[in-house]
């Protein structure tokens, strides 16, 4: 068992990254360009926060594509449109996830099928809980966690996961190995300049991702004064010392939803899905040419238009009030 774990990660190395971090309370605000340049070299394992079309760190994904990163591994609880973009940009080597498609309404992702079936990207499939426990084990600084999930199935077999006989009960348990990403990407409603982060609504796996990752980039709808957190510290979901870069990006998860801020833009997803269905990779490349290459994230939002963004804010209010 120790041999196999050694192939996945070295505990001293992954802990060493945290020990060596500058934990001072210091400003970390920077541009999207600098954050990606500094923290996401090609070949990195990037954990993508949010879930499917909720709080996706879209602005950072676009910047990764603009900076032509390659050979990336991404991990995410449920993987969506962002992976289609990264695939077309030739940025991906491997996707570690429990489920991969744009969303239920749009059927099976053509991009996923094409690239996986042609062997151009590796789809490492785990159960949803198993993936969550992998991040959590890493967030705890350990190497595995026990679960009943995946026992007896082909997911156990294909992932070559170890089982044990529990020393306390004599029952069998499956041990999912920790997953230590190089960098975690979190989009949040609020952060301060030091990297204290408030997440409203669904937290998904973001807290565990922040603890598991060697470095963390946070984009936030708004940067607030630190008194916001000092006055009510229970708002802090991720504390400053986990975070390495803070970027203010209003609408930074568009076309995904951001709880209490704006709804998902379903027509944008539908148009994208239709383009990939009709034109395959070319459809995605046209999308990237129109919205990403040579453009800033603000250019992208300007093309979507203020009117549409205001509609999505109203739609959010109608649903959750």
């Amino acid at each position, binding site marked *: 068992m120790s041999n196999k774990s050694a192939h996945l990660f070295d505990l001293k190395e992954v802990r060493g990254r945290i020990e060596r971090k500058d934990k001072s309370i210091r400003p970390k605000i920077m541009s999207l360009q600098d954050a990606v340049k500094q923290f996401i070299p090609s070949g990195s394992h990037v954990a993508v926060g949010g*879930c*499917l*079309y*909720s709080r996706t760190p879209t602005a950072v994904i676009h910047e990764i594509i603009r900076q032509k990163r390659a050979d990336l591994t991404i991990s995410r*609880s*449920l993987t969506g449109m962002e992976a289609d973009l990264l695939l077309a940009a030739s940025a991906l080597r491997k996707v570690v996830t*429990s*489920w*991969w*498609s744009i*969303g*239920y*309404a749009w059927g*099976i*992702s053509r991009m*996923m*099928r094409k690239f*996986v*079936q042609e*062997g151009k990207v590796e*789809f490492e*499939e*785990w*159960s*949803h*809980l*198993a993936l*969550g*426990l992998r*991040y*959590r084990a890493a967030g705890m600084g350990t190497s595995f966690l026990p*679960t*009943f*999930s*995946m*026992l*007896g*199935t*082909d*997911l156990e077999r*294909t992932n070559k996961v170890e*089982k044990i006989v529990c020393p306390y009960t004599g*029952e*069998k*348990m*499956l041990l999912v190995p920790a997953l230590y990403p190089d960098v975690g990407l979190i989009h949040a409603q609020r952060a301060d300049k030091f990297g204290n982060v408030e997440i409203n*609504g*669904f*937290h*998904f*796996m973001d*807290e*565990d991702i922040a603890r598991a990752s060697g470095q963390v980039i946070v984009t936030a709808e708004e940067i607030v004064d630190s008194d916001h957190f000092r006055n009510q510290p229970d708002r802090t979901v991720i504390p400053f010392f986990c975070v390495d870069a803070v970027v203010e990006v209003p609408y930074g998860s568009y076309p995904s*939803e951001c*709880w209490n801020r704006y*709804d*998902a833009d379903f027509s944008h997803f539908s148009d994208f899905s239709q383009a990939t269905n009709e034109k395959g990779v070319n459809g995605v490349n046209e999308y990237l040419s129109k919205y990403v290459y040579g453009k800033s994230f603000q250019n992208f939002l300007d093309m979507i238009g203020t009117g549409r963004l205001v509609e999505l804010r109203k739609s*959010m209010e109608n*649903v*959750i009030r």
Partner: protein
Amino acid sequence: MSSAKASYTKAELLAVMTSRLLEDKKTVFVGIGLPMAAALLAQLTRSPALSIIFEGGIIAPELKHGEMPLSTNEIRAGRRAMAFCDITDIFLYQQRGYIDYGLLGAAQIDQYGNINTSVIGDFHKPKVRLPGSGGANDIASSSTRVLITLIHEKRRFVEKVDFVTSPGYLTGNNSRVNSGLIFGGPFKVITDLGIMGFDQKSKRLKVEAIQSDATIQQIRDNTGFELLVADNLERIEAPTKDELRILREIDPEKVMLRGT
């Protein structure tokens, strides 16, 4: 409730049948689509105190009719919920024993209730790559009673699934428990032709009831393996007008009950 003959789609039939199996005062782990319609219908008919649980970390939401979520991780799924928690933690509540029912669909199912939602063909060189487990494996491993709902077709009811994504009774007899899965397991498989349980000893699929307009021969013709049949085979009451009316009020645009 009135039981006059009404017309309905296969998806509506499956939603009604699933809803009837959800007892009151229980918790149910619900996926997107048909399971959601079934759970809501149950709440509005027999089981007003049934609590819905969503994968996104959502406990006991009150969904708005006509505004159905398109994922289990979005604002519409979380509307007026009693609690939110991390995704990992919602599954840990399930592993702890808090989830009475898990509702699953399937691309392929075999005679022991194993489900494939991963690949058709070889895992490493798939003919068709499907989206994957999501939470289905976890529901099949740890919820107390798993209900599986699908259209009854020979290509779906296969002797051996290409890939076991979500565990049923594995290779039958005690193999599920022997693998370490000491809790839960498939309870019923609900199709447009009938409802099946599992033989107590062999754990093979066993037809227990047939839909109002189906025959046992039809079930055999649409199954790719030999089915056991219960001695006291029951005839199921067709969806009532009330059930169909409520179902259509919940989801007038058929967001959850697309196709079939």
